[in-house]
């Protein structure tokens, strides 16, 4: 159904530079398909990111976020090996969770 997210978490000092790429159509409900029918609204409504189990970001989105959404974030007070988990839920109730570990600075 939904494709896995791409998550990159790199450490810079004690701050994680987190980049997440989700794969989702993010339909606005305004676009028409080739037959002239309106493509129904289908977008990610909520994104929750946790760092070692604690919520660091709770986002609410509208259909105005671009297709295959990108999300960049910085988290303070982290170290290599910390667990990052990203969950999204769309307006049809579909959800997906992916996890990543913080990589040491190279």
């Amino acid at each position, binding site marked *: 159904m939904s494709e896995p997210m791409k998550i990159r978490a790199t450490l810079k000092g004690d*701050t994680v530079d987190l980049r997440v790429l989700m794969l989702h159509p*993010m339909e*606005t409900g*305004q*676009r028409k398909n080739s037959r002239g029918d309106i493509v129904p609204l289908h977008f990610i*409504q*909520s994104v929750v*990111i946790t*760092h070692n189990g*604690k*919520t*660091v*970001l*709770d*986002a*609410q*989105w*509208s*259909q*105005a*976020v*671009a*297709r295959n*959404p*990108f*999300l*960049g*974030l*910085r*988290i*303070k*007070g*982290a170290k290599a090996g910390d667990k990052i988990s990203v969950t999204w*839920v769309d*307006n*049809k*109730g579909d959800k997906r969770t992916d996890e990543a570990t913080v990589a040491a600075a190279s």
Partner: protein
Amino acid sequence: MNSIRRTFLKLAGSAGALAVLGTAGLLRTAGAWAATWNKAGFESKALADAMKNLGATNAAESRDISITAPDIAENGAVVPIAVLSRIPNTQQISIIAEKNPFPLAATFEVANGGEGYVSTRIKMGQTSDVWAVVKADGKFFTAKKEVKITVGGCG
């Protein structure tokens, strides 16, 4: 009467009932999410309404918020926007594209070490100001930047 067929029908019937229960459960979960989702804010059609539904009616302009966005975006379907808030205790960052059909694009709540920085990509229908609304210590601050759009990304 074919007893195997009867059994099958009975089983199919109960499976159907289970499916209905499952759907009801899913609907309820979706409803719970919608409750936390700022429906009024996201359905506002004007900048002032969107601000009001965020609770940010008396927002002050602030120089401690920087918006990183292109001056000219060729493709309105993908406009990279980054917001950095240097205001202490930043709790929430919202991104508003003023002339979109529904201006409020996204709200981010940060906590537990999440810094006052988010970057994402939004769709924009036409050239317009992009507003960042930051909530810190219960107070609201704003900043804006104009982004020119060559081809709109709403259709």
